[in-house]
């Protein structure tokens, strides 16, 4: 008896360490193992992009999710960080300076911090819509400057560099993609940890307080403007690091990287992943990169799907992927998750029907509008060949979409009830 109590009172240090850092050890292990499983060149490139975007979208969520600042110009800090890193690479290589490649993202981070400081001083004077508008204006300003200041931004073609021309450390030249992958993975892990640690500091918590109720924050001793300003600088710093990583990865920076479009993408990533949870933007970055890579391979209308997914997410799952997962945590704890699975399986039928109908509609329309002139009216949809000029595909698409919507609405109440039972118990639901 007494020995078990003693054992419980004195926790096993290894177990304690695991409990505290288990997630991080697992993440590191996963990052190390991933290239062994997915070793193709395309997979490596995709994973490198994911690592960069994870840092970028987490930095964005320091503003949107943590502090409640909707920015439309976050690519400015990513892009400027990237451009400075590219120039730094060229300068270092040209001057044979003894600076190794792995520290280069810090150059990007510094640039992001510097411009976060300058633009933050202007834009964080205001909150809410005014802040959003200023961020949009600054974003557009820098984006248009990027086409004018050719010396720094290189015009349409951008600026290139060669990462292998830098000081070699322990024989690693970062020529092969796999070496770049591990560099990005290491930076990614460090940045995730740093940004997570930030949420657990006095300032990190005050960011949340300012998001929740800025007025009250002023009456407990905090200048909301200062809180927003520091958060903005820190977010700029990490965005700059992401830009530096991008510069190393692509050995190229151009106007697209600093455009309003890029600012939009980072918003989408954070939102789709879920801005209410720290890990949300990580999931969002992974999903969006996957979609970008795979959808753009399959269909020319991939941006449209991307937009539809975003709209669907905003309408049906405003908490994003992380929100959906959190919704099922209580079910997992109660051990009732298996109860709802059959209902999800049943719901999958109308969802897949609707999705198939919508996809067919989009693809046929896309073919009609864009490709008929060059390719003729004949088209393929999942290996099914047909003529896009006949009413048949349109009819089928309408039937699938309509049927899916109808069945889905029919079944939705039962799904909801099943979820309610599983989450709160049958008694509570009544």
């Amino acid at each position, binding site marked *: 008896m007494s020995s078990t109590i003693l054992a419980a009172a004195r926790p096993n240090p290894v177990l304690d360490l695991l409990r505290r850092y288990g997630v991080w050890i697992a993440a590191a292990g996963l990052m190390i193992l991933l290239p062994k499983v997915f070793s193709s060149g395309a997979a490596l490139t995709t994973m490198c992009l994911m690592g960069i975007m994870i840092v970028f979208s987490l930095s964005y969520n320091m503003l949107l999710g943590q502090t409640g600042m909707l920015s439309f110009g976050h690519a400015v800090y990513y892009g400027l960080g990237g451009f400075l890193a590219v120039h730094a690479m060229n300068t270092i290589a040209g001057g044979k300076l003894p600076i190794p490649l792995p520290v280069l993202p810090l150059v990007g981070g510094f640039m992001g911090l510097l411009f976060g400081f300058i633009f933050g001083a202007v834009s964080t004077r205001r909150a809410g819509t005014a802040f959003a508008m200023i961020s949009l204006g600054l974003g557009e300003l820098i984006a248009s400057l990027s086409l004018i200041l050719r010396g720094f931004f290189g015009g349409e073609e951008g600026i290139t560099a060669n990462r292998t021309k830098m000081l070699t450390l322990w024989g690693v030249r970062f020529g092969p993609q796999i070496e770049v992958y591990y560099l990005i993975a290491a930076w990614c892990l460090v940045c995730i940890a740093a940004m997570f640690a930030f949420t657990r*500091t006095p300032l990190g918590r005050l960011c949340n307080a300012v998001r929740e*109720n800025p007025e*009250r924050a002023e*009456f*407990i*001793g*905090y200048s909301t403007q200062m809180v927003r300003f520091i958060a903005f600088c820190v977010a700029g710093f990490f965005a700059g690091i992401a830009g530096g990583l991008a510069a190393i990865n692509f050995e190229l920076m151009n106007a697209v990287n600093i455009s309003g479009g890029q600012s939009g993408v980072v918003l989408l990533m954070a939102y789709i992943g879920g801005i209410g949870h720290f890990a949300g933007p990580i999931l969002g970055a992974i999903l969006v990169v996957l979609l970008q890579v795979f959808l753009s391979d399959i269909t020319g209308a991939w941006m449209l799907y991307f937009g539809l997914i975003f709209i669907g997410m905003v309408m049906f799952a405003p908490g994003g992927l992380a929100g959906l997962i959190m919704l099922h945590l209580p079910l997992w704890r109660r051990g009732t998750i298996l109860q709802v699975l059959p209902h999800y399986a049943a719901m999958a039928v109308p969802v897949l029907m609707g999705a198939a109908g919508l996809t067919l509609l989009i693809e046929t329309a896309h073919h009609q509008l864009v490709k008929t002139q060059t390719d003729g009216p004949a088209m393929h949809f999942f290996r099914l060949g047909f003529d896009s000029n006949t009413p048949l595909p349109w009819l089928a698409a309408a039937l699938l979409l309509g049927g899916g919507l109808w069945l889905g609405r029919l079944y939705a109440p039962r799904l909801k009830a099943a979820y309610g039972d599983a989450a709160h118990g049958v008694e509570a639901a009544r």
Partner: protein
Amino acid sequence: MSALALEDVHKTFGVTPIIRGVSLEVGKGERHAIIGPNGAGKSTLFHLISGRFPVSQGRVTLNDEDITGLKPYQINRRGLSRSFQVTNIFPKLTVFENVRCAVLWHLGYRYSFWHNIRKLNDANERAMAILQQIGLADRSQLPAGVLTYAEQRALEIGITIAGGAGVVMLDEPTAGMSRSETAHFVNLIRKVTEGRTLIMVEHDMGVVFDLADRISVLVYGQIIASDTPARIRSNTAVQEAYLGQALEAEH
């Protein structure tokens, strides 16, 4: 030396004068109640003192230091903290986090992003002690937004006193509470403002006469009387302007 002093303070919204020349002195450690009919400008006066609105004219001093025109956070840092008539908390943060955020500045952590908040024993212990005082210790991990109305009012006071301000201003702390809740609350207020200067707006005359050392009566933007409870009770001008109806409403 006074804890708080107002000298001929005016406030106009557009062309409408709301506060029309208020002078007031509150001594250190005094419990001062401000009473008056609805719309008299009591909350507005609180907003002027705490920096939520700028004064149109006049001077406000805190511990003989001029605080006119300062921002709310600057005034708070100098030791004046206030609560709100309409509950004003951080609804999605936990109850504990609400109070902890309110102690951080005053413990010197300011904008630190180099301290791990879980290891700040002084902040965590102080927050917990305050939760115990206001009776919300067993609610500490709930989001503040799900608390009952009375609990949120208690949290409102907890946030207000958390920083350890020497001057505490409460705007209708017992509004909307039942009789038993009110009695409990009066004790709570007495307890947590021990050794501090208290300025309080209150409609409940029972609470006012129970707690206050001095009472000021604000009617239509002017203080018509400022005196001890006994003398306010027998003041005919006050009887006419306000107290007559207010005491009747009590019964």
